[in-house]
């Protein structure tokens, strides 16, 4: 029944809570790092806060003399550690700043004389107030954020209160007996005792109480930890399933290479969380998540050969290190193993669900291959589509299905849900997410950090990939430039230089192509978020559903 695996979302220790010391330089630094942590670990909180903030540029002044500017940007928040002129200005000293985070304080205590000031129109001030309220209520639940604020408290020399939230009941004449909350505080080894770690809830306090079933609603998940855990679960499953047999050096070691290099863990997270959201056990989805990752890695091996890529996940591509014939063969091996892994679900999920999984896998592979064929055909014919819709159609097939749609649908099937209408609704939501994901992927290839992204810089330009930025550029430039670009793209990759690619990138920046692509990605992610709220009401609220919500916002704020 229980395999003894760790459940996702639970095992990782956030940095700073144990061992690693966090140093906060100033109040502005604290705010900036809080927002950075949110964008990385709980992007849906940042997206919701951005929605409240709207177009307001908020100038922040702190009691320690530091300043920062907070603004919304593409469904997310951005902090600049410098002051800009904004329509709304806020002043926090340390008392009010810490009270902002400490929900135990009443508003009247927060607004002490000289501790807080705000200037702006009433409407804008209220929008800022809602933004901070949302951040205070939802970000306080994240342990990585707690660690930052705990470190700041310590840097100020303040005692760290350990409370259960609220004034609590009269303890009564208990004498030497500690209360139940005291017992509970000692129950979680290594639990952080930060000011707002208030997981203890009182069911009955001698006078009144509330049912245990009303206590814990769905909470915001730390997506960063969850994706890492899901990635590891799937990678472990893959490495377990690759047989220990000959030929090792020519096949099985090569098949292990890409899965062992890591990745984001997006597909396993979608697969496992969807299974949980539909009432299934996350363990039931690990094997199918591993199968999807195997297909993905096989696609990557073949894709790298087709695109003549050099690097993958921070190292040389498989064909660069071992030659094209062995790489093609290893990709074939992974495809075969993936099929075998899908079939192996029979003993865990039964025949009916496994047949449904196979059906979905066939659809996923067909869509991906067709999408890849469309793009390779464009490159072969030296064609660049003029309409965004052509690009959207291509990436929906090439990436959308196997990166977002199918992992979700497979997770639902693993939980026993095969109703076409519900699967289609789920697919519609994550189809939008898949588009946003691929556009962001293309953007990162141009302007992302190479260490994080893991591929050679400007690789897409060198490969002549038809990205949204390129399509926008071709629409924006003069006919003369257009002809020059087509000529450059028509040359073999070996004849296109990095310097030329940098020139094209600069032209894209001048034409606003990258900003345009960012906006399109944000629009698709926002559409996905709206559909998520409007059409997936049939999925009960749960932690797993909250994770799916986080993923929608992750796709266009991710850095890798």
């Amino acid at each position: 029944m229980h395999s003894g695996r760790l459940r996702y979302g639970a095992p990782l220790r956030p940095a700073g809570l144990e061992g690693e010391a966090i140093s906060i330089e100033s109040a502005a630094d604290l705010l900036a790092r809080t927002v950075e942590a949110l964008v990385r670990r709980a992007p849906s909180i940042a997206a919701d806060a951005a929605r409240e903030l709207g177009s307001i540029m908020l100038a922040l002044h702190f009691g320690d003399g530091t300043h920062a500017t907070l603004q919304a940007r593409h469904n997310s928040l951005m902090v600049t550690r410098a002051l800009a002129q904004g329509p709304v200005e806020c002043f926090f000293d340390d008392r009010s700043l810490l009270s902002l985070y400490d929900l135990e304080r009443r508003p009247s205590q927060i607004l002490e004389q000289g501790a807080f000031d705000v200037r702006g129109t009433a409407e804008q001030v209220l929008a800022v107030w809602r933004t901070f309220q949302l951040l205070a209520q939802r970000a306080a639940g994240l342990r990585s954020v707690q660690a930052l604020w705990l470190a700041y408290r310590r840097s100020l020399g303040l005692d760290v209160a350990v409370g259960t939230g609220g004034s609590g009941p009269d303890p009564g004449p208990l004498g030497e007996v500690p209360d139940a909350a005291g017992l509970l505080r000692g129950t979680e080894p290594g639990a952080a005792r930060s000011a707002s770690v208030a997981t203890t809830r009182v069911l009955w306090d001698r006078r009144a109480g509330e049912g245990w079933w009303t206590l814990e609603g769905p909470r915001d998940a730390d997506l960063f930890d969850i994706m890492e855990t899901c990635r590891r679960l799937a990678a472990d499953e893959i490495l377990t399933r690759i047989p220990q047999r000959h030929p090792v050096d020519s096949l099985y070691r090569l098949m292990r290479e890409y899965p062992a290099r890591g990745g984001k863990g997006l597909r396993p997270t979608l697969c496992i969380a969807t299974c949980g959201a539909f009432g299934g056990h996350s363990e039931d989805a690990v094997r199918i998540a591993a199968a999807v990752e195997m297909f993905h890695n096989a696609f990557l091996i073949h894709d790298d050969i087709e695109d003549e890529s050099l690097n993958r996940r921070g190292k040389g591509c498989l064909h660069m290190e071992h030659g094209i014939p062995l790489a093609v063969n290893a990709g074939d091996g992974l495809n075969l193993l993936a099929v075998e892994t899908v079939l192996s679900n029979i003993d865990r999920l039964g025949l009916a669900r496994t047949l449904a999984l196979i059906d979905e896998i066939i659809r996923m592979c067909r869509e991906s291959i067709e999408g890849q064929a469309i793009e390779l055909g464009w490159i072969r014919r030296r064609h660049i589509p003029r309409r965004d819709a052509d690009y959207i159609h291509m990436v929906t097939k090439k990436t959308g299905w196997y990166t977002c749609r199918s992992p979700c649908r497979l997770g639902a099937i693993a939980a026993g849900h095969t109703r076409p209408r519900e699967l289609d609704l789920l697919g519609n939501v994550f189809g939008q997410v898949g588009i946003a994901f691929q556009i962001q992927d293309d953007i990162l290839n141009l302007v992302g950090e190479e260490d994080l992204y893991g591929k050679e810089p400007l690789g897409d330009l060198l490969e002549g990939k038809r990205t949204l930025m390129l399509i926008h550029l071709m629409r924006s430039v003069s006919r003369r430039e257009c002809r020059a670009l087509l000529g450059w793209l028509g040359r073999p990759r070996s004849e296109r230089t990095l310097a030329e690619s940098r020139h094209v990138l600069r032209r894209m920046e001048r034409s606003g192509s990258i900003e345009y692509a960012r906006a399109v990605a944000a629009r698709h992610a926002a559409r996905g978020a709206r559909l998520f709220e409007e059409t997936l009401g049939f999925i009960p609220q749960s932690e797993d559903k909250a994770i799916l919500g986080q993923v929608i916002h992750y796709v266009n704020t991710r850095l890798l």
Partner: protein
Amino acid sequence: MTSGSARPDAAPPGLDVGPFLTGPPGPFPRVPLSDVLERRWLHYAFITTDEQQALIANLATLGAEDGGEPIRTTVLLAYHREHGWACSQWHAYLPREPWTSFRSPGPPTTFPRRPDFELQSLAGTPAVALHLTSTSTPAPAGVSHFHRTHWKRWQAQPGVLAAGRWDDGMVPARETVAVGYHERVHGRWAWPEMGGWVFGFCNQLGDRLDGPPSWAVVFALLQPMDEARDHTAMVMVWRRGRMVFFVPRRALRVSVAGQLARDRVVTTPSLAPLLGTFATAPIPAVLCIDGYQGGDWIQLRFRCRDAARLVVPSETSLQPFSVHEVIGDMEVRLRMNGSSQLFASPGIVEFAGGAAERSWSALR
């Protein structure tokens, strides 16, 4: 199972109940069940002395609908520490009336005789054929009344010994000895109005396996959906078979923390998905109770380990209700008459509730 009928919120027909009902009309307990909401339960829960296996059984008689025959349901839920849970459907085979100390009052008997508690899933396993022995005095009966015409009466008894054949279908059948808890319940309630409860027990084994436990603890917290004045809580402590400490609700505090990982919760029986079972609130990871009486006090800390979500068809709607049977480790500290005690033993806690909070129609 009955389902889909209008819920009889009023008192049983023809009965002048006055302002509240606190129990069945007529000579208790041999009074016919008045309607579909009234029920009698015999509840059994045991943990083997090697702490590897446990069982929970519930034998229910439910009032008939429209003057028909009462409905009986029998569920046997088995647990193995390594292999998890196995469960019968709601109609496990019960060859004869089971043992209950409440039907056969008298001094404890320990001499061996034929099994008097036999229960078997129609699938073959899980199945038990046990001889049960009472070693401890029963607790005083508890009463909770709520929603004017709804009430629940119960009486618990810890330290019940079980010896005999135990086949959970997960490991080979064996002869074993277990110690546990027995309870009878008589009540009339609908699940949404019932709110929820937390019941639990532990037995600290003594030197001899055929005698009463050194210590035993039973606790209950009932929280109907009505006002807090209707909430009931109690903790009781037994010392070598005699109840020695009772903490009433005004001297108790109950708290929970964390969540039991969802993968530690198994939904049973296997037909449960057919009922359109929806998600429930996460089960707490830790339950703590502290209470006092004068200078005496008690602290309980229960760490949940594994749970079975036993789905119960509702008598009044198509939406099922869930009772979570949770296995875990209990630590008990208590101070009585100036001396302190500390012991730890496995325990079973039942978390039930949330029927009124969630429904598919509300979520749509």
